[in-house]
């Protein structure tokens, strides 16, 4: 197709062809085209088939208000052709049409529309339930739009951005740009979102002019240049707003430009002020076959010509209800479209200049007339027009039927911001009758259509926003208010919805294939408010998000008399305002995690790394899921565990001990200088939340450890429980400052002695001792603990020195057969000793008493108001609790039950916390939480394992610990 290439308003570069595939055809568009305009320019009129009835659908609007033009692009389904820029080499195909949109074999569905009344899904597809499995695949195949392959990967790069701003403007039309400029001149930082690829809005492409004679597009271009020159304005183009929330939060996303049309950048702005200048879209005129390809809105026809240089048709019939329609008819005539007639719903009130313009061009203007029916199958061939009373009719040939009843303001962002809408009789709009603080609106959205009035209202909104931010230009505001009063006010609008005598095939919602008849059916069923009818008849619930039916439905319901309301009532708007990929919300998808200083070394040693909370840790160092070699190394020689993820804290100051007494169940007034004290923290219910050791490094100065999972919340926990106390203490999170090496096994001392001059003998450094000494001149904090049940040294090493000291120890231990061990080995080793891991042997309801750690509780420190103390007192002898027990399998050759398996006795009476095969004892051992009556030594436990097929495993409550019950091996 030949483009009009002389127009000053074009946004294409006709000299830069872009070739793309459409089905099997090879087509050519030009730079600046959208997928929709490129297809239209190539003569494509049927873009797809509708959801239920498989009716042919074509280009109706250009901003994605309906699902008519959803296509598949490069394998991505449901791409809106209207808003997707054409890129070289794109592969475009149609959806929901078999085999092609022009020849769809399911087109017969249209004849079956009588079988699918409103509420079809609720009423018909209800019972009998056994038909569902048969019906669903058929419906799925025939209804719906695009197809998503199971292995679909959303293309494009996605990231996010958080621009800082004092004012956020939604809509970069004349009003929005004026607001932005006024605010920026006052010193505000302004962010402007515009969903189209360029600013300018409704005036950007129009050659018409106000009384000053300067064309709209020219005046708008000057405004655009000023906005682009302002250092305080950031204009995001191609950026539809998704949501507006309380506290000034606005979310949007920005589509990529060719050659990356699928890139999307999520944008979040929190600004003190908001200006909504989203303007108007057109309100559809309803008549029979009002969505035939070739029927389109006035702005669509106009922009096709003015922006993309495509004549929308050869012979046009207009049926409109606003001045914009008259303006478009005159301009399209000048561009070469034959205008058979212009029917205007209004009897009077037209702009006399436009009426003159039509008569000068000898275009017949039919006052009070409306189109009642579009003819033709895959495209419009004729239109039947009728006078107001329906008695006079005429049918005219045409291939373009421009139809729109009126304008409708885009109020979605405004209502999300908290504005309450009320029906305005003069404009026929739902307009805000009150605005929340720091929210302003201006421009065509308010009903004003005059360029100067729109611009002045925008500037005024900008000054109001400046006032919100403490820059009050009272005189300028007064002046603008005065100017605005002198400018033309909001234009009168029609409330006309549907042409007389039509309805059965008059589609109120294209996305959901809902007709006016469906709305009537819903009202017959007793639904009387638009919000409910919307649900029942599925009007406005599709991808267009109510853009097509949002205004017509309440008007129609009101005019039907079914509604109890005195005035039309709008339906509710919700986020997202435009269809948004979840991947777009996910943005950059940062998943930040921590690695210990030994991470690379552990990997190099064959460590199988796992993500545990925020950390990566080595589960094991071989293929063997049971980590046999690692376990035996610790039991018979020596092993090393990277325990760097342990929480580590310094707490100091005159009141530090009071703090410790508040959160730890033990008595912290008696922590000796050279020993590590083991203790636990509980929550207010006396339930176990954490355990660790505390050492006193000097007077009023303590160093303590927490479990890995609690490290991130310990400061918060401590400050929370002391928030009323005004105590003098400091706390520093040193978790990442020290790496921790657990050097364990009978040869641990011999290895350690090789790398330090300090005396690490049992006499000089006994069990539960704490020492500070140097290893290779590096200061190390050392504790003798015994979590794995062997002689072990827990070395806290400055993080930057971890690799060095670990390597020294590995070298020193080579002769002893030292090897790294992982969490799996540690788990078995500690299980043999029945040392609990919080979260494994405890859950939300497990108290300190339940796991047998009640001895840690110092019951006699009421002054401390210890967290959990009251509940520990109250639950100490509480019956009916689950208690921690050790068990062995009745059959020692049985496999250990899976963690979490239920312990049953006709009902569930407990569960297995952890169970592993013990290489030392040569049988499985485990820990379980069971009801108290089952906790006596020798009790039989029946274990139901997932997948056991009803075959219960038998276990017996046993003495604990299983390994080295006297604890001799820890103390050597």
């Amino acid at each position, binding site marked *: 197709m030949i483009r009009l290439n002389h127009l000053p308003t074009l946004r294409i570069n006709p000299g830069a062809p872009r070739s793309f595939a459409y089905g099997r055809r090879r087509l050519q568009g030009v730079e600046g085209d959208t997928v929709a305009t490129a297809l239209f320019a190539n003569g494509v009129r049927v873009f797809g088939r509708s959801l239920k009835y498989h009716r042919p659908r074509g280009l109706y609007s250009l901003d994605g208000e309906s699902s008519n033009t959803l296509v598949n692009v490069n394998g991505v389904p449901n791409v809106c052709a209207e808003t997707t820029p054409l890129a070289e080499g794109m592969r475009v195909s149609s959806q929901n049409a078999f085999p092609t949109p022009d020849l769809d074999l399911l087109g017969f569905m249209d004849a079956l529309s009588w079988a699918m009344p409103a509420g079809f899904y609720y009423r018909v597809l209800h019972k009998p339930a056994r038909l569902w499995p048969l019906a669903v695949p058929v419906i799925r195949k025939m209804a719906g739009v695009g197809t998503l392959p199971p292995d679909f990967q959303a293309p494009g790069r996605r*990231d*996010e*951005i*958080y*621009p*800082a701003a004092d004012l956020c403007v939604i809509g970069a039309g004349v009003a929005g740009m004026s607001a932005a400029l006024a605010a920026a001149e006052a*010193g505000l*930082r302004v962010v402007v979102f515009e969903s189209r690829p360029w600013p300018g809005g409704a005036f950007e492409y129009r050659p018409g002019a106000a009384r000053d004679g300067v064309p709209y597009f020219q005046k708008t271009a000057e405004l655009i240049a000023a906005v682009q020159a302002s250092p305080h304005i950031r204009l995001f183009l191609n950026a539809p707003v998704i949501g507006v929330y309380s506290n000034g939060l606005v979310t949007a996303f920005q589509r990529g430009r060719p050659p990356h049309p699928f890139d999307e950048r999520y944008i*979040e702005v*929190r600004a003190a002020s908001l200006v909504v200048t989203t303007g108007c879209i057109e309100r559809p005129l309803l008549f029979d076959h009002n969505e035939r390809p070739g029927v389109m809105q006035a702005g669509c026809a106009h922009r096709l010509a003015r922006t993309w240089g495509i004549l929308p048709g050869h012979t046009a019939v207009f049926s409109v209800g606003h001045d914009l329609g008259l303006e478009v008819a005159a301009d399209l005539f000048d561009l070469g479209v034959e205008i058979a007639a212009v029917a205007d719903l209004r009897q009077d009130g037209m702009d006399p200049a436009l009426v003159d313009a039509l008569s000068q061009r000898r275009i017949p203007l039919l006052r009070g007339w409306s189109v009642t029916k579009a003819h033709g199958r895959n495209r419009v061939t004729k239109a039947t027009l009728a006078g107001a009373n329906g008695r006079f009719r005429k049918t005219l040939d045409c291939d373009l039927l421009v139809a729109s009843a009126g304008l409708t303001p885009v109020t979605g962002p405004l209502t999300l911001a908290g504005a309450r809408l009320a029906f305005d009789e003069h404009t026929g709009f739902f307009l805000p009758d009150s605005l929340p603080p720091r929210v302003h609106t201006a421009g065509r959205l308010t009903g004003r259509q005059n360029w100067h009035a729109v611009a002045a209202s925008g500037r005024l909104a900008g000054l109001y926003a400046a006032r919100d931010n403490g820059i009050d230009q009272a005189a300028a505001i007064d002046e603008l208010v005065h100017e605005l009063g002198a400018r033309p006010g909001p234009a009168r609008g029609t409330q006309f919805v549907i042409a007389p005598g039509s309805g059965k095939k008059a589609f109120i919602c294209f996305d959901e294939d809902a007709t006016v008849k469906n709305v009537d059916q819903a009202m017959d069923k007793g639904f009387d408010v638009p919000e409910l009818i919307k649900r029942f008849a599925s009007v406005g619930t599709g991808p267009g998000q109510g853009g097509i039916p949002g205004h017509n439905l309440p008007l129609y319901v009101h005019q039907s008399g079914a509604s109890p309301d005195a005035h039309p009532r709008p339906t509710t708007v919700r986020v997202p305002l435009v269809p948004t990929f979840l991947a777009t919300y996910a943005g*950059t998808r*940062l*998943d*930040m*995690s*921590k*690695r*210990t*200083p030994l*991470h690379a070394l552990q990997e190099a040693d064959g460590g199988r790394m796992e993500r545990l909370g*925020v*950390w990566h840790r080595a589960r094991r160092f071989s293929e063997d899921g049971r980590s046999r070699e690692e376990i035996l190394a610790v039991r018979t020689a020596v092993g090393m565990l990277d325990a760097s993820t342990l929480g580590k804290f*310094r707490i*100091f*100051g005159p009141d530090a001990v009071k703090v410790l007494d508040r959160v730890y169940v033990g008595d912290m007034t008696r922590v000796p200088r050279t020993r590590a004290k083991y203790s636990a923290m509980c929550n207010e219910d006396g339930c176990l939340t954490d355990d660790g050791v505390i050492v006193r490094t000097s007077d009023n*100065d303590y160093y303590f450890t927490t479990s890995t999972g609690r490290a991130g919340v310990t400061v918060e926990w401590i400050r929370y429980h002391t928030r009323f106390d005004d105590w*003098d203490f*400091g*706390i*520093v*999170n*040193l*978790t*990442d*400052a*020290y790496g921790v090496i657990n050097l364990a096994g009978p040869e641990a001392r011999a290895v350690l002695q*090789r*790398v*330090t*001059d300090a005396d690490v003998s049992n006499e000089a450094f006994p069990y539960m001792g704490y020492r500070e000494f140097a*290893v*290779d*001149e*590096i200061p190390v904090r050392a504790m003798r603990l015994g979590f794995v049940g062997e002689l072990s040294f827990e070395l806290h090493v*400055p*993080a*930057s*020195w*971890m*690799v*060095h000291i670990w390597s*020294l120890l590995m070298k020193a231990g080579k002769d002893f057969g030292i090897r790294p061990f992982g969490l799996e080995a540690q788990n078995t080793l500690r299980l043999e000793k029945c040392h609990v891991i919080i979260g494994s042997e405890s859950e939300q309801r497990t108290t300190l008493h339940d796991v047998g750690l009640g001895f840690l509780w110092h019951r006699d420190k009421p002054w401390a108001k210890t967290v959990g103390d009251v509940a520990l007192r109250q639950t100490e002898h509480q019956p009916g609790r689950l208690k921690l027990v050790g068990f062995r399998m009745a059959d020692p050759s049985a496999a250990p039950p899976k963690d979490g398996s239920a312990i049953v006795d006709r009902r569930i009476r407990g569960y297995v916390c952890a169970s592993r095969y013990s290489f030392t004892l040569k049988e499985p051992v485990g820990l379980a939480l069971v009801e108290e009556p089952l906790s006596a030594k020798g009790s039989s436990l029946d274990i139901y394992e997932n997948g056991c097929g009803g075959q219960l495993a038998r276990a017996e409550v046993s003495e604990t610990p299983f390994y080295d019950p006297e604890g001799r091996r820890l103390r050597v």
Partner: protein
Amino acid sequence: MKSDNRLRQSPVKLDGRPHRTQVRDHWPLVSEYADEGDGPWLVDLSHCHRIDFQGKPLGAMIPESLPEPEAPGDVRIQDMTMITRMGNVQGCLWCFGQAPANPIGFNGTDITEATLALAIAGRHTFAIAEKLSSLDLQSPGEALPRLYQGPFARVPCQIVVLDAVPGREMLLLSCSRGYGRDMVEAITNAGAEFHLRSAGEDRFMGMWETMTRGLS
């Protein structure tokens, strides 16, 4: 025992080919990378000493002859040291180049090992930052340098905006050491569109000097 040439390890590893290197206090440092470009730059400063101070009154806790930052968010700079005020009873001393002159005392805690420190500098610094943080790091109402405490790449960070003069933009970032690899990756990815490159310590020191000259 004492081994020769023992080396510490930084929590972060930057891309790029080192051009000049040195070892200081056992830290292997890159003074300059080959082909650092003309900004923006990412510099590893994790070896610089950072001391946390807590107590009342905060000024009395800091044994350096620096003026006390008066309100939370305030930053004081003198020569190669900087003090940030994090709250009513907490502050942080940063020493670039060498260790603190005086013992840190009871209320000080050396947190050099607990955190990593990076500088993002040069043009587009704030364009990179706004892709990673919703913090308003360029609020026109705030005098620089200024401390911000909040999420950067989802991680709680201390962020010191040092300079915003075009071409001299510079911010310091510190967070838990364990995030090293992911933090560098996040910044590198966000900075790719602006051609972010690794730079050596000299680059930072040079910009620091320019900035402090501007302050005095």
